């Protein structure tokens, strides 16, 4: 036992000495590198490429690759893409974010795709002035309070989605009795709460239910839905869950239809007989004016299974690349300059009005969600 004591004491002393030495050393942060020309520049992508939301991240990166290729062809640049897979996990997002930040060739990051990734990497990217432009992180708290000074998003946030949904439900659908279901994650809970509050303020009777994100059976929840309920608002990120819910509602003879939030958007998986869904950027597949770019995208991939997530990320990439190109042209190819240019940019957009940002990184003017009505599995935008 005595030898052990000596061992512990020595160990503590040794480590104390090392610590004092270390704390005195300046921290090693990645300094933004000076890249002479636009030939050695990369775009980073931070999003879930595998894991529960992997198919969404794959859609986003597919459109991003398409966008990078198109931009390079049209402008003679040679931008490359560095992928960062967050697997929808916060610690992984942080590690991968650091990896991107340490890569001196990366002058802008497209993402984080999920709001959680933005929360862990926001401060990190801000410290290195690395612009991160997201096409899908819609959580309200990302731009509330003291925002991350290098975070931007080309889509409206959930603060817009909630009121839009509840207005549509109470005004257009004239619902008097609504059930709101969340799926117990950081996306659905705030959205569900906001919608519940707003509907109750308008005098609508609202009851709340909750399912787990990987639940596949909603029969007992459906049994709780009264026969006088008009609409079930389901905040979920799993489109097949919304589909199962609407089927089970029909099975038990309830009149309520499902209104899915943007996580449920999927023309291939959410195909109720009657329902609605909202999405943060219009799905170009249903817009005749976007036929040209859809055609180009379809030539880029063999099979087009994309929905609305891809084009928004494409737009984010376009904003970033335009800013980088301008920085190169001005002779100041570094992260600080790129962030400044992104903040002051106006970029023509394929998903709506030209993209401009406000002081907090949101779309100037707030932006708008698009609502689709679904009849027999067919989607049609609601004007």
């Amino acid at each position, binding site marked *: 036992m005595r030898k052990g004591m000596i061992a512990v004491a020595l160990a503590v002393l040794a480590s104390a000495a090392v610590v004092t030495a270390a704390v005195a050393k300046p921290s*090693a942060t990645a300094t933004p590198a000076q890249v002479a020309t636009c030939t050695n520049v990369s775009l980073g992508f931070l999003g879930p490429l595998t894991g529960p939301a992997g198919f969404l991240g*794959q859609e986003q990166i597919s459109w991003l690759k398409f966008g990078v290729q198109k931009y390079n062809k049209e402008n003679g640049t040679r931008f490359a893409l560095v992928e960062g897979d967050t697997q929808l996990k916060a610690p992984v997002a942080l590690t991968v974010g650091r990896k991107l930040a340490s890569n001196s060739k990366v002058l802008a990051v497209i993402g984080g795709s999920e709001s*959680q990734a933005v*929360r862990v990497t926001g401060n990190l990217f801000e410290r290195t002035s690395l612009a991160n432009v997201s096409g899908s992180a819609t959580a309200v708290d990302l731009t509330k309070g003291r925002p991350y000074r290098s975070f931007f998003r080309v889509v409206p946030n959930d603060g817009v989605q909630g009121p839009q949904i509840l207005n549509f439900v109470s005004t257009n659908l004239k619902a008097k009795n609504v059930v709101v279901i969340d799926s117990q994650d950081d996306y659905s809970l705030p959205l569900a709460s906001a919608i519940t509050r707003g509907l109750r303020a308008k005098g609508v009777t609202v009851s709340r239910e909750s399912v787990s994100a990987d639940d596949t059976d909603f029969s007992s929840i459906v049994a709780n839905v009264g026969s006088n309920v008009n609409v079930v608002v389901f905040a979920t990120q799993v489109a097949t869950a919304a589909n199962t819910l609407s089927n089970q509602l029909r099975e038990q003879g309830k009149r309520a239809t499902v209104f899915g939030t943007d996580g449920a958007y999927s023309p291939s998986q959410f195909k109720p007989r009657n329902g609605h869904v909202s999405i943060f950027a219009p799905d170009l597949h249903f817009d005749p004016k976007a036929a040209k770019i859809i055609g180009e995208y379809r030539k880029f991939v063999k099979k087009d299974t994309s929905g609305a997530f891809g084009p928004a990320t494409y737009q984010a990439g376009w904003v970033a690349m335009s800013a980088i190109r301008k920085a190169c042209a001005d002779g100041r190819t570094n992260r600080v300059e790129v962030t400044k240019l992104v903040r002051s940019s106006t970029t023509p957009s394929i998903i709506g009005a030209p993209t401009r940002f406000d002081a907090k990184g949101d779309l100037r003017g707030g932006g708008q969600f698009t609502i689709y009505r679904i009849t027999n599995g067919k989607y049609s935008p609601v004007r």
Partner: protein
Amino acid sequence: MSETPETPEPQQPRIGVDEWVASAEERRRQGLGTRIEDAFGRTPPVVKLLALVIPFAVYPLFVDSEYLMQVGIDTLIFVLLALGLNVAVGWVGLLDLGFVAFFGLGAYLYAAVASEYAGRHWEAQFAIPLIAIAVAAVGFVVGLPSRRLVGDYLAIVTLFFLQLWLVILVNASFTRGPNGISDIYPLEFFGRQVTSLDGYFYVALIAFVLIISFLYLLNQSRTGRAWRAVREDELASELMTMPVNRLKLLAFAVGAGVAGIAGAIFAPVQGAVFPASFDLVLLITVYAMVVLGGAGNLLGVTVGAVLINASLEALRDANNASWLFFSVIVIALLMLVRPRWLPVAILAGTVAFGLVVHEVAEQLRPSLVEGATFGGTRIDELAEQWVLLPEGAIGPDGLPAGALARLAYLGLVAAVLGLTLVRSRLWRSIGVVPVLYLAACVWENLLLAQPAVARFVLIGAMLVALMAYRPQGLFGRQRVEIV
């Protein structure tokens, strides 16, 4: 008198010594591995500790990227987790499947005492010990069912506890649900805040030194011996008047306390805590570290944690993964197959076999070799000429686009399993060649397309193989259960 042939004088038998065992011992002692083990056993523990700590201590001096520092910190946290799990699983033989809940509890408790959300900022020299004690107390409570439950049932109860913990985390309002708690304040020791990654690395290193010393002393003490007795034969220990239930509870508590400390360091490094960070994948990863290193051996689990975390990082994306994959195969062959010329022959045979198959395929069905590799290393560039890379076997999203890749994967699993059934050494060595080639093809085609998933597949396979062939892991001691 006829001449009787001279018979050698029989050696006088030694008292209390079994001749056969003694001669076997002598032979064993000559081996290199045993000589190292003996020398290792003779060095004083302080020296061993320093030898372990010094590589960690100098790591930051050689590394200047934030990413690698983050990896280093994550590795140290994993080491702490492995040490904690080792107490219950390695020393007492209890299967604790709820272990990561203690880790999460430690992280959330830190967020509860040092974050903007909680509105306070306790200094770490108070916070961390208090958190350790609190989590240890919870560990004690979770261990309470173990008095009535056999090991298997205990596993399920602890697993349910983990589920319960996640449900509470996600739904209770005071934990901020799945949004987690962001804006966690950094560690503050006596008024000085730790703000740099290097600082956190050294904090984690100090915690490691303290904890491993504490556990070492605990193991050497009566408690450690009692734990080992309980693991070997619970009934006998109880008859020997050891307080078996109290010992089990103590093991749970100590393991939980260590996990709590790891969580308390994890939270400020991350800056935020989310419920989803503490899931089953993390649990099985820590188990893999403990099993690989050697359950019950402090040095073993440390090494296991470092090896596995480093491998996981290397396999994160396709840029470096192939180095790890192919070198592990080569090293495994060289280490496991005797005589020494056989692995070389096998490797040479595999390369030759592959080249032949590649040529034949190129002539007969060119589409089989026209694809491009996903990997970014020099090995992958070479492998493009060696393995079959069918065009379009994998879609742009990394998933198999048809049946070919899936069938190849299933075929590989079946082939490997089948190989273990072959009795004759000759046929096994011959059979290894096409199986290795198939493995390389599947790696280049399918596994490299999704390296993040592939690494977990490999961990699962490794865990099964370890338990079947070398349950004591790298450094553990072989245990024989007397039925």
